[in-house]
């Protein structure tokens, strides 16, 4: 490769006690596609945020094209030709694509939106995007929003693009499209940095991989010399077995039967449309789908948190007497009082599953604090449970009364999953159980779910990583637009098939 377009030397950034980047020195070469690889919390995003003007380094030096620069805000970053597409889109919902592109640009007089639109079309033609400049953001799909973000930074003249986990929200097909656009950009001489933790994507798109671990820069290797195993080892710092077990299904009994389940969200959009499925003890039922296609509503309906349309039925078959109980129309407390052993690990861990300002101990009693006749809460039992989970799942926390908000993502999830498993469920529902977790914690979660499965629990696993779904689950239910697009066998399912079922109902075949 040629000269370094950006070079960082001894860049350090800390947040309170946390050292997010520790003396990082690295180069980014002109015209390359660089993958910045690291586990969650390894400091990838922080490092790139210092290039895009979101954060300012505590110490260290940044050079762009050989000149030392001070990037104080995103405007300075654009002046250096650096543009970043953040993981959480920063778009104005009620604006059109063109309006979003120019928002924040200082310019005298009126914006000439027509010339902006022309500029957008030119960029689209050049790199192979599809984008209607007059479309409002609220009408856009996730992938369109991302496209718009990329167009925005190119329009503003960025030569160095930083994409933060761009594929996290995309289907396999959309990911392929994005990659071809990225390759076009490279041909045009642009430099692209992709932040990611997905190994197969690293291998398929990038020229070079730079690895961060716990805030420190480990090394950079040419992609052609790397394998999934070698990269993982550098990322984690030790050899990791990358196989997920899938024990044989034993003693399969019906636990949950969902029929004709439909519901609307607060805006009157139909989120679930006549969903039918069954979940059995001793198996893991995977639920795949593009985010926002009814996964949340499905689990919340079962948990008693979602108003459903008349005609639906959710029957729970108790392992004690094998009798069925209807859950429709019941509140979470009524469901529990009925003797239903249902555990639920929601997607929003601190916003729904736990109380962020409370310690582990107080979080343990979230679901059963009301038991007993005393007006006072029982603090002893939750404390013991917290200590037990702390020990068994190796939760890293200063103490069981430290607010769980201050724990890392992986430890927060251990607390939540630990509590839900401790309730000895018959049905265990998890939503994006490993999102944002490091590899070791993810494998701990897979192991825990498999333990539940083999002990006879019906596990429902809503996931986004198709590779994991195919390795872990016995059956995979694919949701598309709130409908069950298909149910596949976990062992024989092909990724392309799942991807097709995710984007078109029934996988494009008219079989309704």
């Amino acid at each position, binding site marked *: 490769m040629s000269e370094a377009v950006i070079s960082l030397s001894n860049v350090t950034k800390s947040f309170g006690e946390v050292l997010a980047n520790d003396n990082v020195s690295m180069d980014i070469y002109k015209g390359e596609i660089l993958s910045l690889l690291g586990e969650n919390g390894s400091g990838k995003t922080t490092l790139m945020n210092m290039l895009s003007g979101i954060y*300012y380094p505590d110490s260290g030096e940044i050079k762009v094209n050989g000149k030392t620069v001070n990037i104080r805000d995103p405007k300075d970053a654009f002046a250096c030709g650096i543009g970043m597409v953040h993981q959480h889109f920063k778009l104005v919902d009620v604006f059109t694509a063109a309006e979003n592109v120019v928002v924040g640009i200082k310019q005298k007089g009126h914006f000439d939106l027509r010339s902006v639109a022309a500029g957008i079309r030119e960029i689209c033609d050049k790199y192979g995007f599809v984008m209607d400049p007059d479309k409002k953001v609220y009408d856009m799909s996730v992938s369109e929003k991302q496209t718009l973000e990329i167009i925005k930074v190119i329009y503003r003249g960025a030569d160095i693009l930083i994409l933060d986990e761009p594929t996290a929200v995309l289907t396999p097909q959309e990911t392929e499209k994005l990659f071809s656009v990225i390759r076009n950009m490279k041909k045009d001489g642009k430099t692209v940095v992709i932040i990611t933790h997905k190994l197969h994507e690293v291998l398929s798109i990038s020229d070079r991989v730079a690895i961060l671990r716990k805030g420190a820069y480990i090394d950079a290797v040419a992609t052609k010399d790397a394998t999934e195993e070698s990269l993982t080892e550098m990322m984690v710092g030790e050899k990791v077995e990358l196989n997920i077990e899938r024990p044989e299904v034993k003693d399969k009994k019906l636990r949950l039967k969902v029929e004709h389940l439909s519901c609307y969200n607060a805006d009157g959009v139909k989120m679930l449309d006549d969903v039918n499925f069954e979940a059995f003890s001793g198996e893991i039922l995977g639920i795949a789908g593009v985010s926002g296609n009814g996964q949340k509503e499905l689990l919340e309906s079962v948990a008693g948190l979602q108003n459903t349309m008349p005609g639906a039925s959710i029957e729970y078959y108790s392992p004690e007497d094998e009798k069925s109980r209807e859950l429709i129309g019941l509140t979470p407390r009524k469901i529990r009082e009925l003797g239903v052993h249902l555990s639920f690990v929601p997607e929003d861990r*601190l*916003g729904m599953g736990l*109380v962020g300002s*409370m310690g582990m101990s107080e979080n343990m009693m979230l679901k059963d604090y009301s038991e007993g006749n005393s*007006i*006072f*809460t029982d603090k002893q039992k939750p404390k013991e449970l917290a200590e037990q989970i702390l020990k068994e799942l190796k939760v890293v926390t200063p103490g069981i009364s430290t607010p769980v908000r201050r724990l890392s993502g992986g430890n927060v999830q251990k607390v939540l999953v630990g509590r839900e498993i401790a309730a000895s469920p018959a049905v265990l529902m998890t939503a994006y159980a490993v999102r944002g977790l490091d590899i070791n914690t993810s494998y701990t979660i897979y192991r825990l779910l498999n333990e539940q499965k083999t002990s006879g629990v019906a596990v429902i696993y809503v996931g986004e990583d198709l590779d994991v779904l195919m390795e872990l689950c016995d059956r995979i239910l694919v949701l598309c637009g709130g409908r069950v697009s298909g149910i596949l066998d976990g062992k024989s399912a092909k990724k392309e098939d799942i991807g097709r079922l995710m984007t078109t109902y029934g996988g494009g075949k008219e079989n309704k």
Partner: protein
Amino acid sequence: MAAAKKEPFIRLAKRDVMPVGKKIAVRLISLAIALIVCGLLIFSITGINPLEVYSTMIKGAFGTKTRVWATVKEMMMLACIAIGLAPAFKMRFWNIGAEGQVLIGGIVTAGCMIYLKPLPPVLLFAIMFVGSAIAGALWGLLPAIFKAKYNTNETLFTLMMNYVAIQLTSFFVAKWENPFGSNTVGIINQNGQEGWFPAVFGSRYFISVVLVLLLAVLMFVYLKYTKHGYEISVVGESENTARYAGISVGWVVIRTMLVSGALCGLAGFMAVAGASHTISTSTAGGRGFTAIIVAWLAKFDSATMLLISLLLAFLQSGAGEIASKCKLNSYASEMITGIILFFILGSEFFINFRVIMRGKKEKEEN
């Protein structure tokens, strides 16, 4: 070009959790700086020795027995309202309506004193106590029901309820006008002192003190150790978590506002039966708003609420004194109160953030 630009002049960074000792130190330092700034200001404008001003303040608040009790009375009023507000704010229900809840409690108390005068004292007190609490509770209930059922904005709702309460007070002041044409209610039951708090240990305010201290302890236990308190914390943190836990959010909102309103109503009872023995639109006198500051500064901890109430009551009595003694007008005392509050509130910022100046590695404290 960015290369020519300098490092930013001031940057902020979130702090780790500060040790308790250091937190107290920061607050004390900020108080000291506040006093120095006040002193400089007073000296530069009037030429009066600031130390003299401060000693006048202390004399004004604690100089005589009467003054001590007056300061304590003020402190208890503030503390009572703050204790009432604490559960609502802990639930993140923005009860800006304490002013109205106090007034309504006061109206009911005054009404009892006027119409139920012949009743035996114990019964009269019981009716006033319960009546003012119920009145305040109902005043808090209305916005709570609308919040629970229709998710209305409780800030606006409770705020507007204040004006309704003020108008109601005006109405009753006109109705109970005494003597005729004075446009005030005058001192109620001046001769027989029916419905007045009796003097205990030489002070009429003693009962108020006991009552507020009792409420402070009860509120501490309620928030910290009961199931209700736990529910309030969960709802305040996240309604989704509350629903997930099986808590009926609407019911908790209604129940908590009943408690909050009732305690504010009791503050009205204390203000009328225990202190002024009259009712006017200024019976609450802005304390319903000041108490919000007390509750938040104390993070809803009972003991801290009492301390902060004391500080504010001291500032008010002391500032009033310097206004008359040092021939400064009342604005001067308000300025002093304002400066001190500014620094105390500002110190919270330095407890949560570090300030990093250009060129330096780090700057500690304020």
